[in-house]
């Protein structure tokens, strides 16, 4: 998607934008070839998967960069900065933020789930999947509790999300209660917004959910965000070639940029952001991420229970 929502963000974050614009265009005193040439800047483009669509749309718009989609299986384009989860990028990518795995529930249905489960956890999701909403105090028109998940073979966020579910030992019929299946978590959340009746709940990275919160409000309603306890946190990184790319990537670590990134749904490497996107919350604790040894078993269980 293009960055045409940037106008609203620019109004809200005018000061930060101006500061970041100067930062990105500043001359490098140690480099005689350094220039503020706007052509050189605009030659750059940002390539991102759906999970980072809001982050990339806004950064591209604010800096006059191009914008394209990126799939984890694609090679890194020579003329682009790719933003993604560090585990999905080549070694050497610069880590600049983090994002936990979260649970998104249509706000209209969230209280029903809370009443039944106490709080919304992966165990609650597995237990309630397939239960008619009317049996737990919801509307009969909502049908049964249904989930959206992404393929753990695609990327680290998809793998971590599936681990949270798989560790609750879902039954053999669990797959029929997961009608929303896409390759990536970003695609799952996008589909949830486009087709609100396709699923009630998604498990995805917080940045993927955050990318669609405003869109969800415009299309179908609020999404309430919950955090597993503990939540696995994923490192977010950028990679690109050339000086313009290096300047841009370096700028992402600045305080102003980190504040802007917080408003776009990313968390700083250390400490808490002062400018976290509305509707996001606070994870209770940080959990361990998937080990290499666990990976094949998780993929096997996905193929066995969900398939494609």
């Amino acid at each position: 998607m293009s960055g045409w929502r940037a106008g609203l963000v620019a109004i809200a974050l005018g000061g930060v934008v101006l500061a970041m614009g100067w930062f990105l265009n500043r001359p490098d005193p140690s480099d005689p070839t350094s220039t503020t040439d706007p052509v050189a800047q605009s030659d750059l483009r940002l390539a991102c998967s759906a999970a980072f669509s809001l982050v990339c749309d806004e950064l591209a718009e604010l800096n006059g960069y191009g914008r394209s989609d990126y799939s984890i299986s694609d090679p890194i384009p020579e003329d682009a900065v790719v933003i993604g989860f560090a585990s999905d990028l080549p070694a050497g990518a610069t880590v600049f933020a983090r994002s936990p795995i979260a649970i998104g529930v249509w706000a209209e249905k969230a209280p029903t789930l809370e009443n039944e489960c106490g709080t919304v956890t992966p165990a609650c999701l597995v237990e309630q999947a397939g239960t008619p909403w009317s049996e737990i105090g919801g509307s009969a028109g909502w049908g049964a509790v249904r989930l959206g998940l992404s393929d753990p073979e695609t990327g680290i966020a998809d793998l971590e999300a599936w681990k949270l579910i798989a560790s609750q030992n879902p039954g053999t019929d669990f797959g029929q209660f997961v009608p929303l299946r896409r390759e990536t978590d970003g695609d799952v959340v996008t589909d949830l917004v486009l087709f609100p009746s396709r699923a009630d709940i998604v498990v995805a990275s917080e940045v993927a959910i955050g990318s669609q919160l405003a869109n969800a409000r415009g299309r179908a309603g609020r999404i309430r965000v919950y955090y597993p306890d503990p939540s696995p946190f994923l490192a977010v990184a950028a990679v690109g070639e050339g000086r313009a790319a290096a300047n841009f990537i370096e700028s992402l670590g600045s305080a102003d940029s980190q504040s802007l990134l917080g408003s776009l749904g990313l968390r700083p490497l250390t400490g808490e952001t002062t400018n976290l996107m509305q509707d996001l919350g606070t994870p209770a604790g940080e959990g361990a991420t998937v080990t290499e040894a666990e990976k094949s078993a998780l993929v096997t269980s996905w193929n066995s229970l969900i398939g494609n």
Partner: protein
Amino acid sequence: MIRRHRTALLLAIALGLSACTPGAGDPTDPEVTNVPSGCVEVPIATSPEKFTLFTGLAETFNARGDEFAGECVAVTVYRVSSGAGARMLSEGWPTDGSAGPAPVIWSPAASSWGAIVNERLAAQGEEPIANDFERVMITPLVLGMPRPMAEALGWPEAEIGWADILALASNPEGWGAFDHPEWGEFRLGKTNPNFSTSGLSATAATYYAATGKTSGLTTDDLTDPQVLEFVRGVEAATVHYGDTTLTFLDNMYRADQEGRGLTYASAVAVEEVSIIAYNRGDPADTGTPGPVPRVPLVAVYPSEGTLYSDNPAYILDASWVTDTAREAAAAFRDFVIDDPANQQRVLEFGFRPGNPAVPVGDPINSENGLNPNKPDVELAVPDPAVLTALLDSWEENRKTARIIMLLDVSGSMADLTSTGDTKLELAKQAVLSGLDSFKPADEIGLWIFSTNLDGDNDYRELIPPAPLADIRENFEATVTGLIADGGTGLYDSTRAAVEAVREGFDPTKINAVLLLTDGMCDDEPPGCDLDPLITFLSSNERDVVRVFPVAYGEDADIDELGAIATASRARLYQATNPLTIEQVFQQVISNF
């Protein structure tokens, strides 16, 4: 044989009728943007309901003058129904131009068609070609009902589903059970799932409703006797089928304008976007609305759940797609999806935008009988193998047809076409290959007409209606042996065929006449007075025998055939180019 040349006026009328009857014209109708000399053409084959929208978007895109690999390009738009597109992509796109150029972008109404194409190609040992797609716009399948009828069922508060439709359709009291006996029996308009996305989605939805599932439909479900009983019950309420929902809506609109809007159909399985077009007075999506209907339609979102048409734009992985065309196609697709102004145009046409950042708003509102917060439950698109099996199952369980094929064998049918075959030879081939689209239990009769074939009668019954399984061999031999001679005793032959079907009218079947003619009535006076025939055809409110005329070649009188179709609440089909007769004939047969 009398040959009459068209005047400019008649041609204008013909083109006007074609525009009013979407999808009824030749696929090669020049409804495309011009391609400047030396530019690369990027053809889009789109399902009919978004043809006008895509045409406008293509014109805007072309006006930008973008170049790709140093070449100018022109995006052109062709109207191809989803099922026909799927069939041609899996069987080989016609090279004779009868379906327009092989597309670079294919935009059926739903991505399930792409899955079907790939499934069919895989079965032939070929690589998939429908891989790279993005959704341009979305719209859910709904039951479009005249507002008073929906309100009689409790709309908008009540949850109404396919089970309610089945109960009403099988109730001998019909609408009398809801204190409206004057509305008669419940009649459902539902398209042929082999051609139409609405038909495919509605068929899948009825199977889902029968199982109580919302996902995971299996091939075992398709053979469950209880499921089949439910499906047959719904199909039994069907007025007739067809290749596009626009036919039903157009007929419904005409009936409405004549003050009998509640008698044609009680509900039509259509996409939400079509309700908006209907209520604007433009049921056929011509872009030129007529008066708003007296009785508007409202959307019932089936309580068991429904499917979306996700309107993908595929850039095909096909041998005919060049790198330049691919690059231009991608740019056009981005232009349509990413530009908010274009997504706003999508919304104005009544589609829900495919860009999630564009909110759903007017005209998807309660004033148009719609609810932007519905549906509550979306049904999962069945796996491709299940979809394919579902189409087979539907063929066996759909409503049976009882029709007479009334074929013109006048002398002009002996005219040669560009292939060297006569028009009659091509028509015979179309009839013979069309037989495969009927099921064995369909009852088919064969009549021919020219002049004085049977004493003073211009028609002759060659085979009375009987199950195809019993007569196929004889039918094929008889068709093969037809010869052309004489004039065109059109009206008395049509009337006689309709009378014959009426005499044996079977309410459990689709009762119709398929009329193929290449000329215009040339009986002795007063045999060619159209008004008595029109009065006769429209005289039955119930037990309607529909006449589906096929205007074959350039000399067929589209004006009078259109009037015959309208009077009998059917639809006119045009095969102006004789080479398209087989394709058009398939469209006609989709009604049965």
